[in-house]
């Protein structure tokens, strides 16, 4: 159980952040949507950019204050990143706003839409990893 203390603490922080964003600004913390809003220059945009700045500075605070090392860089190829990012971005927008964090909200609100999305992206995620890691290693 001790090994799962940090995931639990991290999850609590993420939940608190979602609560604050909804309570103060009335927004759902969907990072994909916020980042897209920031770069596509929507009106009333400063808060989005600051949220993104916070996303990067938050880990800096954690690693610096608690003196924990950065995680190891991914051993995967650049094109894994390129194709992975492309499909993820396309998928998020096509599904018009379900995200991993909204997946959490879906669980909470028992929204069929989010639960369906979560089951599907878990399944294709597991299948993709299985193919890349076990079936065709080195792909």
């Amino acid at each position, binding site marked *: 159980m001790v090994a799962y203390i940090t995931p639990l603490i991290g999850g609590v922080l993420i939940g608190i952040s979602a609560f604050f964003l909804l*309570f103060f600004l009335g927004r759902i913390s969907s990072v994909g949507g916020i980042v897209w809003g920031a770069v596509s220059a929507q009106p009333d945009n400063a808060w989005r950019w600051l949220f993104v700045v916070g996303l990067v500075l938050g880990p800096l605070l*954690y690693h610096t204050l608690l003196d924990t090392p950065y995680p190891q860089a991914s051993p995967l190829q650049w094109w894994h*990143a390129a194709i992975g990012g492309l499909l993820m971005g396309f998928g998020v927008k096509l599904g018009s706003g379900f995200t991993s964090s909204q997946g959490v909200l879906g669980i909470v609100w028992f929204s069929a839409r989010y639960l369906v999305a979560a089951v599907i992206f878990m399944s294709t995620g597991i299948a993709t990893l299985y193919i890349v890691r076990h079936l065709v290693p080195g792909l």
Partner: protein
Amino acid sequence: MRNVIALLCGLVFGAGLAVSGMTDTAKVLGFLDVLGNWTPDLAFVIGAAACVILMTFPFVMRRKSPLMSLRFLLPTTKFINGQLVGGAALYGIGWGLYGYFPGSAMSSLLYQDWKTAIFVVAMLIGMALANKVSAN
């Protein structure tokens, strides 16, 4: 003040991702590796976040409006259609290929690995493409 809150929310969110190990692609991919060396960390992150949200959201939603905005802007789409199914499927493939979701990719920019920057740029291109497709 709204901007300060937004910065703070980003900070706490990003710190949460780093603390929980979700900025480590190895851990996130490990969660998907159910037939290999499974690492359940992500389930604990989601569970803890869901608990906090469960406890706090009813209190928020009893209010007529948020504290610093005119109204709540919540997702309104309720139906399940081909776009949702296709979008979720592609999202999962992207997740399984590299081990980031949008939040963890943004936070991981801190680590200055150029492949993370490629992931983020590709993600934005993907969003722009999907916007074009949905608009037509």
